[in-house]
């Protein structure tokens, strides 16, 4: 909230700028005939991007924001959130939106789009691949929504402390619920998403049937029953909590975003391992909120950030799968440590063998009801 207020103030200031520039330009144009474009017009207002913070923001900073400012001269400010549409809904209703661009999960983008909170986007906005492949063929299927463009695929996975289970290691997502063979506290995200899927997978339900079964009261109860059966369960909300809990030894297994776990493993040397079985893949998209202060600059950034080169570059800082096939082919080594990043991105064939693709359409329409049911159950 504090962040939003700050942005509001900044937005006020920005709105004043073009008027001033016009007055000055008028005066100068009248006075001097041989006048070049003024520095005031050349240094444009800053772009405000709402993103997820932490290691992810650091990677975006180095692969996207800094190069964008270098190329265009437009500074980028970053605000931080943990997902959710409440703040956006309020801001759009008050016609005072502090953000130009939001990094949003596809399911929330679908819901927000249906509520009319976002600007429509078209696939013609993004650049073709270096070899000329048009975007529609280059991007993953389902990457272009009505108001959202997928830029990467991340996964929610389970990570476990390497030293927690001497002599054995979890190999299946069912092991998350098996506290007899893998004893110790767990940490899971405080949302129905991912948890319900894993609970049903643990019953042996094939991944193709997950959302059909979760659509019934029986399926929901079955999944919740399995979750409620976990002892010493901690719920987390912010994306950097699980790796902290693992690092402090508070829990031995935790769910979390694969990029954050990678960061903890590689950059901070945390003794954890990722269990790729049952990883839930999700599309992460760029959206432009309705009433964004600088929609044109936002579009410019979107085109810049979704080029093959930038996508491949981002994957050198954080292991999220690029949404362009041309970029996925260019993924190379980690920028700082030289680790082969291809083995760490969720879309790598070895990791994706038993991956679940989140049914965003389902979540977009059921999120609130399922969420209420979930929180009611665990109250």
């Amino acid at each position, binding site marked *: 909230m504090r962040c939003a207020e700050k942005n509001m103030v900044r937005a006020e200031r920005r709105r004043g700028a073009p008027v001033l520039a016009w007055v000055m330009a008028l005066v100068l144009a009248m006075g001097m005939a041989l006048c070049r474009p003024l520095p005031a017009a050349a240094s444009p207002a800053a772009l405000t991007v709402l993103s997820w913070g932490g290691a992810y923001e650091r990677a975006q900073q180095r692969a996207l924001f800094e190069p964008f400012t270098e190329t265009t001269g437009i500074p980028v400010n970053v605000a931080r959130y943990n997902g959710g549409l409440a703040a956006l809904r309020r801001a759009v209703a008050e016609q005072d939106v502090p953000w130009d661009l939001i990094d949003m999960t596809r399911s929330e983008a679908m819901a927000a789009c249906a509520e009319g909170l976002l600007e429509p986007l078209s696939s013609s906005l993004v650049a073709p691949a270096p070899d000329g492949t048009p975007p529609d063929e280059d991007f993953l299927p389902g990457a272009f929504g009505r108001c959202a463009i997928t830029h990467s695929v991340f996964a929610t996975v389970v990570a476990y402390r390497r030293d927690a289970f001497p002599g054995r290691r979890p190999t299946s997502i069912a092991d998350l619920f098996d506290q007899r063979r893998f004893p110790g506290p767990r940490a899971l995200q405080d949302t129905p998403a991912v948890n319900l899927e894993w609970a049903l997978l643990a*019953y*042996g*339900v*094939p991944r193709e*049937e997950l*959302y*059909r*079964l*979760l*659509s*019934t009261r*029986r*399926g929901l109860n*079955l999944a919740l*029953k399995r979750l409620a059966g976990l002892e010493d369960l901690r719920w987390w909300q912010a994306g950097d909590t699980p790796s902290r809990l693992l690092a402090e030894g508070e829990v031995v297994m935790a769910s979390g975003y694969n990029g954050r776990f990678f960061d903890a493993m590689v950059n901070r040397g945390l003794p954890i391992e990722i269990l790729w079985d049952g990883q839930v893949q999700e599309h992460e998209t760029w959206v432009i909120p309705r009433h964004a202060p600088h929609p044109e600059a936002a579009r410019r950034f979107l085109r810049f950030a979704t080029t093959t080169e930038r996508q491949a570059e981002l994957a050198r800082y954080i292991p999220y799968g690029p949404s362009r096939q041309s970029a996925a082919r260019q993924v190379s080594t980690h920028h700082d440590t030289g680790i082969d990043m291809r083995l760490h991105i969720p879309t790598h064939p070895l990791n994706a063998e038993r991956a679940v693709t989140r049914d965003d*359409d*389902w979540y977009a*329409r*059921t999120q609130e*009801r399922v969420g209420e049911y979930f929180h009611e159950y665990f109250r």
Partner: protein
Amino acid sequence: MLRFLGLVALGALIGGLAALAAVGFVAAVLWLNDLLLVSPRGRMMFAHPEALAIATVLVPTLGGLVVGLLHRATPERRPHTPADVIAAVQTRRGRLPVRAGVLSALSGLVSLGAGASVGQYGPLVHLGASLGSWGARLLRLDRSDDNITIACGVAAAIATAFNAPLAGIVFAHEVVLRHYALRAFAPVAAAAIVGHVIATNVLSRGALFHVADTVLPRPWEFAVFVLIGGLGALVAGAYMRSILGVGRLAERLPFSPSLRPAIAGALLGVTALWVPDILGMGQETLRFATIAGAFGGLELLVVLGLKLAATALCLGMGFGGGVFSPALVIGTLFGALCGTLVGGLGGAQDTFVFYAICGMVAVTAPVIGAPLTSLLIVFELTGNYALTTAALASVTLASPIAAQLFGRSLFDIQLAKRGLDLSAGRSRAVLQDARLHDLLSHDCVTLPPDQCVSEAVTRLSRSGHGEAHLVDAQGRYRSSVTLADLEAMREDGDGQRPVEECPSTPRPVLGPQASVWEAMRHLQEVTGEAIAVVDEAADGVFLGVVYETSIARAFLQHSDALRREEYGAG
């Protein structure tokens, strides 16, 4: 050789068409289910509970109304089912009608789309068979080839819908052809393979009902599986009897037949407000029934009973659709009930899925009369060999017990009610279906009853026949007399008396609709050259005679054709 290879190619072509039709049908049903708020996913994504409740009642009701109207356009006022396919093949009639085929597929589509508790494989099998038969007719192939192309369509439909090519081939042989001929095997296999390729590559679908690796059951559990088979036969019997019983009851209802499905739909919808599990094919219920703890014991019993009742109601009242998918659900629920009981008595819970699958096979195999197909479906659907062996234990008792108590399959029972008895095999079915009127001859001597004996003897001797048939002025048949009897009367000096006084042994007559089979039976009792054909319905009018030699010739011809079809190599 070339002709045979052509038949195989035709089988593959028909397989492709039937597979595409099956894919389209299944996709259309899923789309309708989502759109009409029948599927759990569609219902969940729809956020208004009041409107959902209204739709739950309204959709099956209106669907029933549409189905009722569709059936008015078929000659029999009912959808065609696999039973009609079996009848066409078993009697070598072939030539499935286009109009009824299209209307039955439509009726199945609407019924399934609107959430009626019916199966989708029946309509798919009939659609595939119709496509095969139309192909044979377009190319002017003979009846044997028509049967083979029908089997090709059936195999491809099953291979695609279940993604189970082996089950498709065996189903076509076990249920439809009911004999094994190499000449038929190759085209049927080609069709099934094409269906399988389309299912796996175009739709990129894996095993439809995948069950992950399971622990192996303990030895004593196999005894329980056999027992489940025996009890499952009784459940299957109850299921078949209920469908037929509701059908009989429906006849007595004071509503027009076109309205019956709508009434069933309304009843179904109202019940589904409390137990939505009974709507549609019930794939979610099927999956839940294999998970220990998804249902309570009592809940299993309630859903099992309601699903059985709902299916009997929908099919008996005239919705179009199959009997297989509901039987899968009912059987799996029954198996889960057995598993819960065994678990409650201290048995193992980690083998729960085995009980569910054993129940599934025990109920479905008797209903479709196909133990081997059911086994292969389990194997190909679950991709699990251990489960298949357990299912084998279960089906061992299920099929024979049900066949003894109720009949070979629901299709056979239905056909027997329509007058086609397949219990004595195909040769009898063919002969029963072959009509006499082609053999009818007018080359015979007819005498008025008042003609005198000596004139009759003269007429008979000149005509070269050994017997004459007495027909009165109104054209009605009275009796038959032999030349020997007439001659004997004349010898006795009764030459001037009317022929009707001639003593004659009473002889059976045949109706105009009599079959070759019936004629053969009468031949055992008759000594003479021909049997009179009399239309009893038209007050006993004499139509002509059928010579014993032509009956024997017809019998041999049909037997030969069958033998060529069943034992010919190509």
